[in-house]
C-alpha cells in the first residue's frame, strides 16, 4: 500500500545511489519536497493535537502543584482532587503530548531518511484519532475515579485497547515506510526509530493485558507496571528524542555525525540494558532483591550509552557552538541533549541504594521523570517542530522573539520546576530519613519548594501558550516568506 515514492517527474526515475539526469542538488530538493508534501497532513495533525494535550497537561500540572502547598485547593470537587489530577496529568503528558509529538516527528523523520513518500496518509490520521479517543476516555475515566488503581497503568483497559489499535495503524505505516526505503540503513536515527516503533506496542500490550491474567497477582502487577513505565520513558520516548537529536544537530550544523562507531556502541548498549532498568521504581520494596540489583547494574551500564551519545553529539557541534545563539532548532535540541546527559548521571546516582533509601518515596522521582520527559524529550520535540514546520507549510516562523520567549519560558520554567522538585525531594527525603521528625514538620519543609514549583508552572504555561499561538499562525500560513529560516539574529548570514 505504502509503496515507494513515485519519482516527482518522469525524468527522475533512477534510484538514489546512481546518477540522476538532473543535478543531484535539484533532484534531492524535488524528492524532498514531494516527500514533505506527502507527510504534511498527518504530521501537522499529530503536532496540532499534541500541542492541545500539552496545554491541558500544563493546566493539570499547575493544579496538582498548587494542591501540594494548599491542600484545600479544589478539594471539594471530586474530579479535581490531587489523587485524580496527578495521574491524569502524568498520562496526559506522556500519552498525549509526548507520544503524539513523538509519533509526528518519527513519521516525518522516517519518510525523509528512508526517502519514501507516504501513501494513504489518512490511515495515520485515523491512528491518531483512535489513540486520542482512547486517551480521552481514559483520562475522563481517571478523573471520574474509574482508574485501574495500578500506578503507571491507570488508563482503563478498554481505553488502552483503543489506543493500541490507533498505535498499530501508526506503527504499521512506520514499518512500511522502512520496508520501502530507498536508502541503505546508515542513519543512526532510523535505528532508534525502529527500536521505538517495535518496542512500544509490545511493552504497552504486555503490560496492560498481562496484568489481567489470573495468575499475575499482588506485587507482580506493580513490577509489570513499573517495568512498562520505565520502558515507555526509555525505549519509546528517549529513542525518539535521540533519533531527532541525531538528525537535527548534524543537519543544521551541516556536518556528518562525529563517529559512526560511537553511535553504534551507544545504540547497542541502550538496546541491551535499558529494558532491564524497570525495577528501580520498586527499589527497597517487597519484590525479590535480585530484580532490583539487576536494574541498578543496568542503569550504571546505561552510562556507556549516555557517554557515547553525548560525546558524539557534542563533538559534532564542536566549533559550531555559536549556532545555539542563532538557530532555534539547535538551541532547543542542544538544551535537550544536555538534559539527557544530566538525567543519565542523576539516574545512576539516585539508583544507588544509599541514595535511594533517602530519595525513594519523594518528589525526587518526579524530578527525574520531568528531566527525561520535559527537559530532554519535550525540548528536542520543540526543536524538531521548529525545523519541520516551515518545510511543511511553506513559510517561516513569524517572529524570532516569540521563539525566544518560548525558549526562555520553557528552559527557565522547566529548569525551575525540576530544580525545586528535586531539592524539595532531597529536603523532605532527609527529613523522612530522621525518625525524630514528625510528619507535619516534613510538610513544612516541603512547602517552600512546592510554591517554587507552582511559579515554574506559570512560566511553563505562558511559554506553551506562546508556542501554541505561533503554531496556529503557521497553520494559517501567517509567517515570513519561505526560504529564509527564522534565526534569532536576522542580520546573521549563517545557514539554518
Amino acid at each position, binding site marked *: 500500500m505504502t509503496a515507494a515514492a513515485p519519482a516527482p517527474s518522469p525524468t527522475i526515475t533512477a534510484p538514489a545511489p546512481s546518477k540522476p539526469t538532473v543535478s543531484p542538488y535539484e533532484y534531492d530538493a524535488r524528492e524532498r519536497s514531494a516527500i514533505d508534501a506527502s507527510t504534511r497532513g498527518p504530521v501537522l495533525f499529530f503536532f496540532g493535537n499534541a500541542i492541545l494535550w500539552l496545554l491541558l497537561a500544563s493546566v493539570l500540572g499547575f493544579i496538582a502543584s498548587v494542591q501540594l502547598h494548599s491542600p484545600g485547593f479544589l478539594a471539594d470537587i471530586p474530579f479535581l482532587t490531587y489523587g485524580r489530577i496527578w495521574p491524569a496529568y502524568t498520562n496526559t503528558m506522556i500519552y498525549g503530548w509526548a507520544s503524539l509529538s513523538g509519533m509526528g516527528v518519527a513519521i516525518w523523520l522516517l519518510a525523509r531518511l528512508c526517502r519514501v513518500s507516504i501513501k494513504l496518509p489518512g490511515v495515520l490520521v485515523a491512528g491518531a484519532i483512535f489513540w486520542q479517543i482512547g486517551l480521552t476516555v481514559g483520562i475522563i475515566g481517571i478523573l471520574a475515579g474509574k*482508574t485501574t488503581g495500578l500506578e503507571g497503568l491507570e488508563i482503563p483497559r478498554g481505553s488502552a485497547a483503543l489506543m493500541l489499535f490507533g498505535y498499530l495503524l501508526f506503527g504499521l505505516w512506520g514499518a512500511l515506510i522502512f520496508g520501502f526505503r530507498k536508502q541503505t540503513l546508515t542513519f543512526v536515527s532510523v535505528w532508534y526509530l525502529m527500536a521505538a516503533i517495535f518496542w512500544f506496542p509490545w511493552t504497552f500490550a504486555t503490560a496492560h493485558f498481562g496484568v489481567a491474567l489470573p495468575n499475575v497477582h499482588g*506485587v507482580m502487577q506493580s513490577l509489570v507496571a513499573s517495568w512498562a513505565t520505565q520502558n515507555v520513558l526509555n525505549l519509546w520516548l528517549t529513542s525518539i528524542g535521540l533519533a531527532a537529536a541525531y538528525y537535527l544537530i548534524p543537519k543544521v550544523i551541516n556536518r556528518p555525525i562525529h563517529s559512526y562507531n560511537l553511535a553504534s556502541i551507544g545504540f547497542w548498549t541502550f538496546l541491551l540494558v535499558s529494558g532491564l532498568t524497570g525495577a528501580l521504581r520498586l527499589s*527497597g520494596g517487597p519484590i525479590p532483591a535480585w530484580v532490583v540489583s*539487576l536494574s541498578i547494574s543496568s542503569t550504571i551500564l546505561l552510562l556507556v550509552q549516555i557517554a557515547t551519545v553525548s560525546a558524539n553529539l557534542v563533538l559534532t557541534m564542536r566549533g559550531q557552538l555559536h549556532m545555539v545563539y542563532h538557530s532555534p532548532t539547535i538551541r532547543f535540541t542542544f538544551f535537550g541533549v544536555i538534559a539527557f546527559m544530566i538525567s543519565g548521571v542523576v539516574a545512576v546516582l539516585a539508583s544507588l541504594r544509599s541514595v535511594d*533509601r533517602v530519595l525513594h518515596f519523594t518528589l525526587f522521582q518526579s524530578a527525574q521523570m520531568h528531566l527525561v520527559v520535559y527537559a530532554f524529550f519535550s525540548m528536542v520535540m520543540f526543536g524538531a517542530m521548529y525545523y519541520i514546520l516551515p518545510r511543511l507549510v511553506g513559510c517561516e516562523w513569524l517572529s524570532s522573539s516569540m521563539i525566544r520567549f518560548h525558549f526562555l519560558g520553557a528552559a527557565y520554567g522547566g529548569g525551575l520546576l525540576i530544580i525545586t522538585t528535586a531539592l524539595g525531594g532531597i529536603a523532605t527525603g532527609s527529613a523522612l530519613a530522621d525518625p525524630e521528625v514528625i510528619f507535619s514538620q516534613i510538610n513544612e519543609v516541603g512547602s517552600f519548594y512546592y510554591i517554587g514549583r507552582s511559579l515554574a508552572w506559570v512560566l511553563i504555561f505562558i511559554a506553551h501558550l506562546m508556542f501554541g499561538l505561533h503554531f496556529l499562525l503557521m497553520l494559517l500560513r501567517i509567517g515570513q516568506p519561505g526560504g529564509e529560516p527564522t534565526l534569532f539574529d536576522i542580520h546573521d548570514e549563517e545557514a539554518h
Partner: protein
Amino acid sequence: MNRPVYLFAGIIGSFALSCYALVLVPQQQIGSLQPQFGDDEGKIVDIYPIDNQGVVKAGRDVYASEGCVYCHSQQVRDEQNGSDLARSWGERRTVARDYLFENPPLLGSMRLGPDLANVGSSKWRDEPADEDPNFKPAKRDAAWQLLHLYAPRTIMKDSGMPPYRYLFERRKISGQRSDEALKLTGDDAPEPGYEIVPKPEAKALVSYLLSLDRSHPLNEVKSAAPAPAAK
C-alpha cells in the same frame, strides 16, 4: 549494522531479554506463592494473608479511585533501606506474600503522607507515635479516621492532606443527633441544627484502613519485635 536483519534481531532479542528477566522469572518466583498456614499440632489455626471481601473491598476501591496511592505508600522497608521501622510504620518489612490477594496492589511510590501499611494494626491504632505532641490523640480509631478524612487540619496542624468533605453529608438533624455524626469544633463545625455524617464511601474507606495490618509474622522475614498474639 547495515543489514536490517541484525537490527531486528537486536530489537526482538532485547525485548525478549527484558521481558524474561523482569517479568517472566519474577512471575515464576512470586506467582507460585501461597498464603502461610499457621498450624498447631496438625490443626490449621490461622491463615495469612486473607482475601478481604465486602465492605473492606469496597473501601479499597474508594482508596484506589480517590488516588490515595499518590501520597501514601503501603510498603515497609527494612532498616538498611530507610527509617520505616524506626518510625513504627510496621514491625517488620513487608514482602511479596503480604500482597497476595491485592489486585491491584497499592504499594505507592510517594510519601507526601505517612505509610499506611499497618494503619489498622493494634500498635498503630492504640499507641499513636509519629505525631505532633499537642495534637496527640488517645487512639486512632474509626472516629479519629473519619474526622481526619473530613478535616485533616483539625487533627494535625499543617497536614498536607486535602479535606475529603465530599465523602460526607451535611444534613439537618431530625429528632436525635446521629451516632455517626462527626464531633467537630470551631470553624469546621456545621451550623446549629445540622450534622455531618459519613457517606457509605467514607465508612467503607475507614473499614479498609482499619483492616490494614501486615504485622502477622511470616517465615521468610524477621520481625523486629516478638510476634504478637494472633488476633
